[in-house]
Structure formats: C-alpha cells, structure tokens
C-alpha cells in the first residue's frame, strides 16, 4: 500500500517537474554581433554575459565590420542582436532623417526597422556622438568653448577632417553652418575617432580633430570637446536591435526586453568613457571590463 502510494507520488512529481521544465523550454541560441570598434563590442559583450547568466546559449560574432557589413548580417538573420547608435543607425537608412533628439531618433528607427522585422529596445542615457575637439592650449589661447567660436579663427587652425567629409553632411554641411568656408586652408585627412587623429592632435600635427564624445583620448590628453551649439550632430544614444524571430522563440518576451533594457539604462556617457579608458588605454580585455561593470551594477546574478 505505502509502496504504491510512494510510487504514485513519485510519478506525479516527475510529471509535475517535467511539465515545469517543458514550460520553460530549452532556451534558443542567441547570435550576438557587433561593429568592429571596442565600444560596440563592449556593449554586445554585456548583452552576451547577461543572457548567458540567464541560461541562453550565446554565439558571439563580435567585430563583424562597419555598419555596411553588420546591418545586412542582422537583416538576413546571420546575427539576432546588435548594439546600435540611434542617430547613425537611422542615417544608414535615411540620410536626412537623424535629429538631435534621442527619443525621436529611436522612434524613427523603430518605424524603419518594423518592416524588416527588427525591434528597437530602449535607449541609453549616454551618447557617443561626433565631437569637435581641440587641445586645452588652443582652447585657452583662442577662447574656444563652442563650435560657433571656430569661424573667427578658422585660418589659424590646421583641420583634421575625415576622408568622406565632402560627401558627409555631418562634416561639411555642419562646418559650413558654423561659418567655416570649405575646404579649409590647412587640412589633413585622417579617420575620425581613430588613434592617428588623437595622436596628431596631441602632438600638434593638427589643431582641430573629429573624435567621438566617449573617446578615451579626450580624458587621457586633456582635450576640450567644443559644444555643438547648433545641434548639427545627431543624437547617438545606444540601443539594442533584436530580430522578431528570436523574440518569437524566447519564452517571456517582456522579461527578455527588461533584461537588455536594464543593461542599457546603466550606460551613461561617463560610464562609457570610463570603460573606454580601461579598454583602450589600460589595455584590459573587453570581456573583463564588461563583467566588472555588470557585477558592480548588480546585473549579473
């Protein structure tokens, strides 16, 4: 009697337990990609670690390439999730669309990507936008605090401009709106946000540089980022792009979104710059920096 009751109880428990675990299901594999530079890899790595902590098998494909390569990979399903900057991400589809407002950019991007079956999650408080940067001594000597101050002294400066400046409204048109005659008298051609640009500015090879607002070099060399008072540069808050077909396979979509939004909410400009210094200057591993930050924020269980 008791034996059969025990057996019945055991069988019932087994059925109940198997029902519970099949309710959760096996978690779908998540393919996470990113652009080639450290900041994109860092945020993608954060997504990966948080999802792995939740039990998702994650396939990392970080550093695929520039947006021209990474975005098609996302559209075609070779990756499921990628970090994105709402301004440039929108500009990739519609050059004239990006504005200086983060939520607006996010909304417009979401509308474009809805047709491609990709969701846009929440935006970060911090931004990594293009920054017009000069050395501290130049700023003090020529009294530069905002970009409008540049027009008066433009001929005295050696300009470090990007190779695509003529074709890029964020470079040529933006500078012209500040009263800079194009092309400037003295010009060097260097890639934006790159080490040679920062090095050339620091060693006085150029006096004006296009860097990124969370670039470690700005803190490292004591540069001054001039205020974009005419809002020529787009708002570049970060977000996560997630494919609909991945969300369909996930058990609880809201939980999933809350998880990634939770990571995005912690990324202020200061946090991104600080982590940038750790990766680029202190040469720490991206995975280690991500883990330390997430643990400090209490996001990794």
């Amino acid at each position: 009697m008791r034996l059969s009751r025990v057996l019945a109880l055991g069988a019932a428990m087994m059925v109940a337990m198997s029902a519970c675990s099949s309710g959760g299901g096996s978690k779908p594999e998540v393919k996470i990609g990113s652009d080639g530079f450290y900041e994109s890899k860092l945020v993608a790595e954060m997504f990966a670690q948080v999802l792995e902590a939740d039990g998702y098998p994650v396939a990392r494909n970080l550093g695929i390439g520039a947006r021209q390569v990474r975005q098609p990979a996302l559209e075609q399903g070779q990756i499921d999730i990628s970090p994105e900057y709402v301004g440039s991400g929108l500009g990739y589809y519609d050059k004239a669309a990006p504005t200086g407002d983060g939520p607006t950019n996010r909304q417009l991007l979401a509308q474009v990507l809805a047709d491609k079956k990709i969701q846009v999650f929440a935006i970060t408080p911090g931004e990594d936008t293009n920054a017009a940067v000069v050395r501290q001594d130049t700023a003090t000597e020529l009294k530069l605090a905002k970009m409008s101050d540049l027009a008066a002294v433009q001929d005295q400066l050696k300009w470090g401009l990007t190779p695509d400046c003529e074709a890029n409204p964020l470079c040529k048109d933006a500078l012209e709106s500040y009263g800079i005659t194009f092309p400037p008298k003295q010009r060097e051609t260097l890639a934006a946000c790159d080490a040679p640009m920062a090095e050339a500015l620091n060693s006085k090879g150029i006096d004006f540089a296009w860097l990124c607002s969370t670039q470690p070099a700005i803190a490292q060399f004591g540069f001054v980022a001039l205020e974009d008072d005419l809002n020529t540069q787009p708002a570049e808050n970060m977000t996560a792009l997630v494919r609909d077909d991945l969300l369909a396979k996930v058990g609880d979509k809201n939980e999933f979104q809350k998880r990634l939004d939770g990571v995005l909410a912690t990324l202020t400009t200061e946090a991104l710059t600080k982590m940038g210094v750790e990766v680029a200057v202190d040469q720490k591993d991206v995975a280690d920096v991500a883990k330390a930050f997430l643990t400090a924020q209490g996001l990794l269980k």
Partner: protein
Amino acid sequence: MNETIAWLTNPATWQGQTGVPWRLVEHLAIVGVSVLAATLVALPVGLWIGHTGRGANLAINLANIGRAVPSYAVIVIILPFSLAFSRDLGLNVIPTFLAMVLLAIPPILVNAYAGVRGVDRDLVEAARGMGLRERQILSGVEVPLAAPVIVGGFRTAVLNVIATATIGAVLGFGGLGRFILDGRAMGLLGTGQLIGGAILVSVLAVGIDLLLAVVQRRLARRADPELTDARGLRELSEVPLPQGLP
C-alpha cells in the same frame, strides 16, 4: 564592377590635386625617395660584406628581422616622434618615408651580399693575382658580374614599396593609397573608388616590375654574353645563401 568602371571612366577622377595623375606622382615620389635612401644605406653595406665575407651573419639577420616588422606598426610608432621633429612633415610624409625605407633595405642588402658572394672565386683570385686592389676588384669584377642579382633585390624592394606605400594614407599621405582608404571610408558609395585604386596600384606595380625585369635581363647578358635563356637568368638570381643562416 560597374561602380569601378564608372569611377575609372569619370573625367573628374583624373583631374586636379585629388585626381589619379597627381596621386600617381605622389606615389612615385615616395617610392623613389625611399628606395633611393634605402639603396644608399643597404647597397654599400651589402657589397662590402659580400666582398669581405665579414659581418654577414649579423647584417643578414638584422635585415631579415626588418622583413618581419609590419609597416603599419612602424608608422604608428614613429608618429609621435616625427610630429615632435616636424609639425608640417611629421604627420604624413616622415612616417611613411621611414617605414618604406625599412621595408626596402632587406632585399637590397641581402641580394647585394648574395650577388657578390656568388661571383666565381677563381675570377676574384685571378684579379687579385693580377695586382688589382680590393676596391678595383669589387667595382671591376664583382659588381658587374653580380649586377643582375643586385638589380633583382632592387626590383623586389621597389615592388614591396609600391604596394605598401598605400598605408601612408592612414596618416593622411596622398598617393594611390588615398583612393583605397577614402573609398573604404565612404562605404557603399566608395566601392568603385576602392577597387579602382587597388587596380591602379596593381597595374603600377606590375608595369614597373616588368620594366626592371628588362633591365635585369640586359645586365645578365652583359655579365655572360652566352646567356640567352631565362633559365640561366634564374640561376643567377637564386644564389644560395651560406649555410646556417635563416
């Protein structure tokens, strides 16, 4: 492919300071100046150690280390120093120049050594026996006979520098590398420029290499008038290095 043809056939591509002819001039200028500088350094050293046989190990090992150093790393490392040296030239000209000189030295030095070393020792002894001084032996006997191999080294150096001078564009240098780098920066719009630039560099490299091959052949015939076929020329070019060297 369509974009490349469109870029190549566009008249604007061939005009002005950003056009192909001017970039070609810049490219040839840096190739010429850096190979010349490398020759001034490497050729005398190579000839002398080939003639005397002394210091061969050290020189050739140093040269081979030079082959392993990536030029991109060189230009980035040199940058702060060259900028401290010259604000105007230190950004794009000096790092590219120095990196190309470092790239050109190993083939010139090693081939000069190997060419002189490969000259028949009996001829050298005979010349010594006739009373010729060392310098006369070098200039009158060894160099003319080693000339095809020496030019072979020069040819390798020129080919390497033509191809690699494209990286100077990373620091703002002009030349044909500008098309490749700018094309890449422009993303999808720049594909024609990117591929077109790469084609131009390849055509330049192959063209100059063929020219130098003709020069090498002429010198080989002067060294040995009975030399009429390519096989003989190849034998002259592939002088084995002494044992024990990498």
